[in-house]
């Protein structure tokens, strides 16, 4: 496999413009002759489907939800970045680019990141025109706040529901195209395989989740915008249905999987309460703007937080990082919280939590300001824990939250399979080893509104297509493969539920492949995951029928894939003998406990190529060159 990133030549600020001019165009009257399959209709998928439909392509959009509005993009709270410099604090495209490359710990592709920063301003314009009710100041202009690790205020927000509002914008645009007939939307369909004809991605196999019918669809190109794979950890902040099946099946058909070990643990989640718990709830890290994080100085403290005097509290982030304080990047904040708890300073009934305290901000600004800024988050916290965060500090703990890794894509967002494009969290391209806050919404919409519509057109215009029908052999073969897999799952009739296997995998992933990774633990994971997988295929119990609405069967297929992906994740983590961003190898740290990169050996993208289940995949490397932002050790002191 050769990895050609297809980064255009020329100075970085000209690359995208030059490339746009050089790309081929499809004549407007010919566009309807091209069919594009969009799998997933969250932020990236809905915005891409809407934009492609508007251009005149024939778009078939698929979602396992009943409506695009249910996608997990909706849960993003904090905001979306754009270097508009409305706050007059020195922001610029260049600064956002620099911050993102640095924040990603020098493991992202410079050209992609620059383009992202470049188009991010257009996204805000677009969303405002769609009627997204962003927060505004009293003069009626858009308000900005500073967010997770940024020293400028460049984050646009709609209360704590920014993801919801942006998704509703994209869903509105998509609804308009559905009405116009350019996009056909297929609800409650799950993609189960990719169909390749003559080396090109030409279609998909899906299951109608209501009737259980296996369906086939053909197209000129396929786009996956199916989100990330954090549910490999079982407990995460992801929605329950979020899964990696579309990505994984494409990987098994030849798409390289890049940097799977780059996973993000979010520092501000509500801690786990009990073993029944089904998911973890994220609290926007915007809370860290006004909330101060601390633990008691005394181990095993039993007093209520309000009764612990100021001098007996350790505001450890402010102590360790005087200039960034509570706003250090996510990976740093998460790791330090775990470290404090591991040392015995943790609070709450499990000892796996730290305090996030609004008391200072309330006395400085008044309760009404905190209410206005974080009202919905405080309500949510109160609902879940029955504690009032205005009077008692919140308890928070890190949780798996986002995956920077994903299918490898070139500058055009095309995977190693011609005609298979990947957008949003599902691809690997822009965040390197760590994603900064308010950058996920930005990347999803950048890919969907402003990148895929151009690069897909270029592919369609410059590719020769044979006529392909769903009655062709490749479709039949893929379809019967999926039908066999379903039959196999249904016929095992073992003793353990799908959920039990998922929890078991999640435990291994969190313990051995979670925040602090080391060789011994990773090797342990690589031993245990295949054992769980083996048992799964012998002892899983899937009740119900295949030709019916069957949530157990849906989950079984997804967990089967997580059981393979988890192994790749651990393998990638083991091979990357350095610490960078969210990937922290305990063997590789500075004396002060900071991540220690090894740029000489690991300044590359690890793109893994499938070689069979249980067989070690082939490692391909895309070297990363940093011409504009010179790698240095990240310092937030």
């Amino acid at each position, binding site marked *: 496999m050769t990895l050609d990133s297809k980064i255009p030549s020329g100075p970085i600020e000209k690359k995208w413009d030059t490339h746009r001019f050089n790309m081929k165009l499809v004549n407007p009257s010919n566009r309807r002759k091209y069919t594009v399959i969009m799998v997933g209709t969250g932020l990236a998928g809905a915005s891409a489907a809407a934009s492609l439909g508007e251009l005149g392509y024939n778009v078939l959009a698929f979602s396992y939800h009943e409506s695009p509005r249910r996608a997990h993009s909706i849960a993003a709270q904090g905001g979306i970045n754009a270097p508009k410099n409305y706050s007059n604090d020195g922001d610029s495209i260049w600064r956002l680019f620099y911050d993102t490359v640095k924040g990603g710990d020098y493991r992202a592709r410079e050209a992609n990141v620059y383009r992202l920063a470049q188009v991010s301003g257009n996204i805000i*314009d677009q969303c*405002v025109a769609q009627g997204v009710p962003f927060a505004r100041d009293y003069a*009626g202009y858009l308000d900005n706040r500073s967010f997770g690790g940024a020293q400028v205020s460049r984050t646009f927000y709609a209360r704590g529901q920014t993801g919801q*509002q942006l998704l509703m914008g994209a869903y509105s645009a998509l609804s308009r195209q559905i009405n116009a007939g350019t996009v056909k939307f297929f609800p409650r369909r799950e993609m189960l395989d990719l169909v390749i004809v003559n080396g090109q991605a030409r279609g998909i196999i899906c299951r109608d989740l209501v009737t259980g019918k296996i369906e086939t669809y053909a197209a000129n190109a396929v786009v996956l915008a199916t989100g990330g794979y954090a549910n490999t950890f079982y407990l995460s902040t992801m929605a*329950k249905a979020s899964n990696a099946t579309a990505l994984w099946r494409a990987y098994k058909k030849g798409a390289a999987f890049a940097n799977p070990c780059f996973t993000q643990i979010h520092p501000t989640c509500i801690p786990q309460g*009990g073993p029944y718990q089904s998911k973890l709830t994220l609290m926007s890290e915007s809370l860290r703007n006004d909330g101060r994080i601390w633990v008691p100085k005394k181990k095993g403290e039993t007093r209520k937080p309000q009764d612990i005097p100021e001098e007996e509290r350790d505001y450890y982030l402010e102590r360790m990082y005087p200039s960034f304080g509570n706003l250090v990047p996510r990976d740093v904040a998460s790791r330090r919280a775990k470290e404090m708890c591991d040392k015995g300073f943790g609070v709450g009934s499990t000892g796996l939590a730290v305090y996030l305290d609004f008391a200072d901000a309330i006395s400085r600004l008044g309760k009404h300001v905190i209410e206005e800024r974080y009202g919905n988050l405080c309500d949510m916290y109160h609902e879940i824990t029955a504690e009032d965060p205005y009077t008692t500090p919140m308890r928070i703990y890190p949780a798996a939250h986002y995956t920077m890794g994903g299918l490898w894509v070139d500058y055009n967002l095309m995977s190693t399979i011609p005609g298979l494009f990947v957008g949003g969290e599902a691809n690997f391209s822009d965040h390197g080893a760590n994603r900064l806050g308010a950058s996920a919404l930005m990347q999803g919409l950048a890919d969907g509104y*402003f990148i895929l519509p151009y690069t897909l057109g270029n592919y369609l215009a410059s590719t020769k297509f044979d006529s392909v029908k769903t009655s062709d052999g490749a479709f039949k073969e893929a379809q019967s493969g999926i039908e066999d897999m379903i039959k196999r799952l249904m016929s095992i009739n073992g003793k353990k539920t799908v959920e039990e296997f998922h929890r078991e995998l999640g435990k291994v992933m969190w313990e051995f492949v979670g925040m602090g990774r080391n060789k011994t633990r990773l090797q342990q994971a690589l031993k245990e995951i295949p054992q769980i997988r083996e048992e799964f295929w012998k002892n899983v*119990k899937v009740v119900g029928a295949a030709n019916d*609405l069957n949530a157990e069967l849906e989950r079984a297929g997804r967990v089967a894939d997580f059981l393979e992906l988890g192994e790749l994740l651990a393998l990638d983590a083991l091979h990357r003998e350095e610490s960078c961003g969210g990937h922290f190898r305990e063997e590789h740290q500075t004396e002060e406990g900071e991540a220690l990169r090894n740029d000489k050996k690991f300044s590359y993208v690890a793109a893994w190529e499938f070689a069979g289940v249980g067989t070690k995949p082939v490692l391909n490397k895309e070297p990363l060159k940093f011409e504009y932002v010179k790698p240095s050790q990240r310092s937030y002191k």
Partner: protein
Amino acid sequence: MDFKLKIWRQKNRNDKGQFVDYEVKAVSPDASFLEMLDILNDTLVKKGEEPIAFDHDCREGICGSCGMVIDGRSHGPGRGIATCELRMRVFRDSDTIVAEPWRTKAFPILKDLIVDRTALDRIMAAGGYISSKTGGVPEANSIPVPKHDAEESMDAAACIGCGACVAACPNSSAMLFVAAKVSQFALLPQGKIERKERVLRMVEQMDKEGFGNCSNNYACEAECPKKISVTHIARLNREFIRAELT
């Protein structure tokens, strides 16, 4: 905590359906209602029985997937929460709890507690948008929006499209849902240009789907997980009359 449950089971769209009794034991008061159902389902699966089908996804009250009528109320007891946010601590130990799907003609039952709410998507497709194209829009700050209008627009835009308003309404009206979208756009300068066509088309589709009319019952507001105010229905009516008459 222990509970007795009466849960609606229905194989598919055509099945008649019925309440089935279950028991769950030793549930933590901190567990959510859906986690309680998870625990029940786990025991059903182990016995080889089909688990109760219910829609759910984000489990933090924002995706709008979950929703059922619990003890006669959309999303159960409490205000301003979706079913996934309902905690078992609000019930009393050994309570009997009744759970059934949204009941309205416009939402056919697919299985057990899962209904088909695509009628709401069709209303959206009829006009729930501003027809701006990708690209070709002005700089974001070129049109100021009074803060108060933006805030009120956001109040309406908070709708999660769960359908609780329809289920709560004696007329199965979807007017709070439609009003939220119409109101969000009508309050913004960007949305004013198409305000007439939008309200007429959305209301027409709403009627076509078989949703009833508002009769000022206000159950929708009381049960809305995002506490969307019925004053938006007043605005919808104004928008509608304005569009009809001008």
